[in-house]
C-alpha cells in the first residue's frame, strides 16, 4: 500500500537518527497505535544506527501492508561472519570511538528481535546484510 525507501550513509553520526525520526513522523500522521509505534521506533532507530556504524552504507524501507508493517534494513557490506554471535546480548564489533559515543553496547540486534513480531536476518561476508522485521497491526 505504501513503501518508502530512505538511504542511510555510513559513518555520518550527525545524521544518525534522522531516518527513524522521519518514519516516526509518518507513523504519527497515519495513526499507527502508540505501542506498535514505540516498538517500530526502537527497531528503526537501532537498525539505522547499525547502518551508520557498521555498514558501508545502505537503506531502510518502511512498508505498510494489510495487517502488517514491514521494516527492512539492507546494506552493502561488510557482512556478519557469525550471526549467532552477533545476536548475543553484549557482543559487538563496534570501535572504541563509537562506544565512547554511547553506542555499540551489543544490544542492537537482540533489541530489534525482541521488539519485532517477525525477525529475520541474512548476511554474506563481503556482500552485505539484510534484516527484515514485521509488526502485526
Amino acid at each position: 500500500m505504501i513503501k518508502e525507501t530512505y538511504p542511510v550513509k555510513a559513518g555520518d553520526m550527525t545524521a544518525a537518527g534522522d531516518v527513524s525520526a522521519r518514519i516516526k513522523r509518518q507513523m504519527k500522521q497515519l495513526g499507527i497505535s502508540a505501542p506498535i509505534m514505540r516498538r517500530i521506533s526502537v527497531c528503526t532507530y537501532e537498525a539505522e544506527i547499525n547502518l551508520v556504524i557498521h555498514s558501508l552504507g545502505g537503506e531502510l524501507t518502511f512498508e505498510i501492508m494489510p495487517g502488517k508493517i514491514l521494516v527492512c534494513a539492507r546494506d552493502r557490506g561488510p557482512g556478519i561472519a557469525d550471526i549467532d554471535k552477533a545476536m548475543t546480548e553484549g557482543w559487538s564489533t563496534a570501535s572504541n570511538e563509537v562506544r565512547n559515543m554511547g553506542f555499540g553496547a551489543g544490544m542492537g540486534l537482540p533489541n530489534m528481535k525482541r521488539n519485532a513480531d517477525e525477525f529475520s536476518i541474512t548476511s554474506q561476508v563481503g556482500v552485505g546484510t539484510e534484516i527484515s522485521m514485521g509488526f502485526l497491526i
Partner: protein
Amino acid sequence: MKEGSALPKNETYYHSVRLDVEKCKGCTICLKHCPTEAIRIRNNRATILSERCIDCGECIKVCKHHAKVAVTDPLDIIHKKRYAIALPAPTLYAQFPGEHKATAIIAALFRLGFDDVFEVARGAEVVSYAIGKTLISQDRTLPVISSACPAIVRMIQINFPSLIENIIDIVSPMEAAAKIAKEEFARKHGVPAQEIGAYFITPCAAKVTAVRAPIGQEESYVDGVISILDVYTAMNAFIKEGFEPFEIDRASAVGIRWAAPGGEATAVGSRNALCVDGIENVMRVLEQIENNRFDRLDYFEGLACVNGCLGGPLTVENAYVAKNRLNRIIKHAEQKKVNRTAIFEHAQDTLRMTKPIEPNNVLQLEGSIFERLEKAERIEQVLASLPGLDCGSCGSPTCRALAWDIVHGDASEMNCIHKLNERISALASQMIELERSTRFSSPQEGEKTQLRAKEESSHEAFRV
C-alpha cells in the same frame, strides 16, 4: 488580560494563552518558536491553532510586541466564595528583592485579603512522598515521567503518545495543596467545604489551563488562578512595611525545592533521575526515551521553561536571580525538621488521578487508512516542490507545515514567497517575450515608446 469566571470549565480546548490582535505585527518570531507548530500567520496576524496549543507560554516569552498574553483570573475572584485560601507557588518566594524569608511573603498574602495561606510546597511534599512510594513498590514502565509540568504532559499527549503510560498517575502539587488546604480549613473552622475557595498564585500560563480543563481529573480542586504579575506590586509594598505574626504549618525544603529544576527529582528520592528544562531540550530527550536510549533511568522530570517554574512566563524576576535567591530560602527552610508521615500516609491514596490521560491525535491525518496514505503522499509531493528553506514567510512554521496546510486547504502554494517570486519572474519574462515579438508590428513608433511599453509590461507583471 483579565477575565472573571465567564468561561465554563472543561470547554473543548480551553486556552490561557491568547493573542492580542491589536498588538500583533504579523512577524514570524512566535511562529518559529512554537514547539508544537500551533501558530500560523494569516492576513498579517498570528493565529493560534487551538487543538495544537499546549499553553507552554514560549510565544509570550519571545513576542517583542507583547501580543501574546495569558488569561488569568483577577484578584477579585477571591470573593467568589465565603472563605479564600491562597496557594502560593514556591516560585513566588523568589520574586521579591532583598533578604526576605518566605514568612514575609506569606504575611503579604494575608494582607491581600486571603483568610488563610497553604503553601503549594506542602502539596509538593505529599506528592513527593507518594511518588517515592510508587517508585519503590510498583512494577512500572520506566522511566516514570513527572506529571507536574502541564505543558510537558500536553506535549506528550501530542508528540509522544507511547510515553503516556510512563506518566505518574498522581496529581500535581497544586491540586494536592488545594485539596488538603480545603480539608484542613473546613475541619479547623467547622465550615462547609463548598464555602471555601482555593486560589493558586501562578508563574505559569499552562496551570490556568490545567485548572479550567484538567487532565487526569474530572474537575480541579482549585477555584481560581491568579498571576504573580498581578499581585506583585501590592505584595512588594506590603513586604516593605513589615508584617504581623501569623500561624500556619510551614513547608520544608523538600517542597520548596520543586520550584527549581531537579528539586522534584531530589524530593522523590529517585536513584537514577534526569531533569531537563527548556521545552526543546525536553522534546529531544523524550525522543531518546522513546528510542530506549536510557539505561535504568527511573525518573524523568521535564520542565517546559528554562530554569523550571522560576522561568515561568508570568514571573517578574530574572530566573537566575530568582534561582540564587531560592537557594538561600531553601537553606533557611532546611534548618527546620518536619515530620508529617502520618498526614502523608493518609493523603497519598487520595491523590491518584481518576481519569486516564488520552493521546491527542492532532498530528494524525483524517479519514480511512487509504485516505490518510493518500494525504501523506500528497504532503510529500507538495513538500518536494517547496524550496525547503523553512523561512516562515508563508505564515507556516516550516515547508513541511505549509505542505500540510496546502493539502488541508488552509493555504496555497502562492503563500510561499519564493514560489510566488518564481511565478512573477516567469510571467515577467513572458511579457517581455510578448513585447519583443510585437515590437515591429507598429513601425511608425519610436524607440522611446517601446521602452515605455516594456517598463509598463513588467510593472503589470508585478501586480499579478
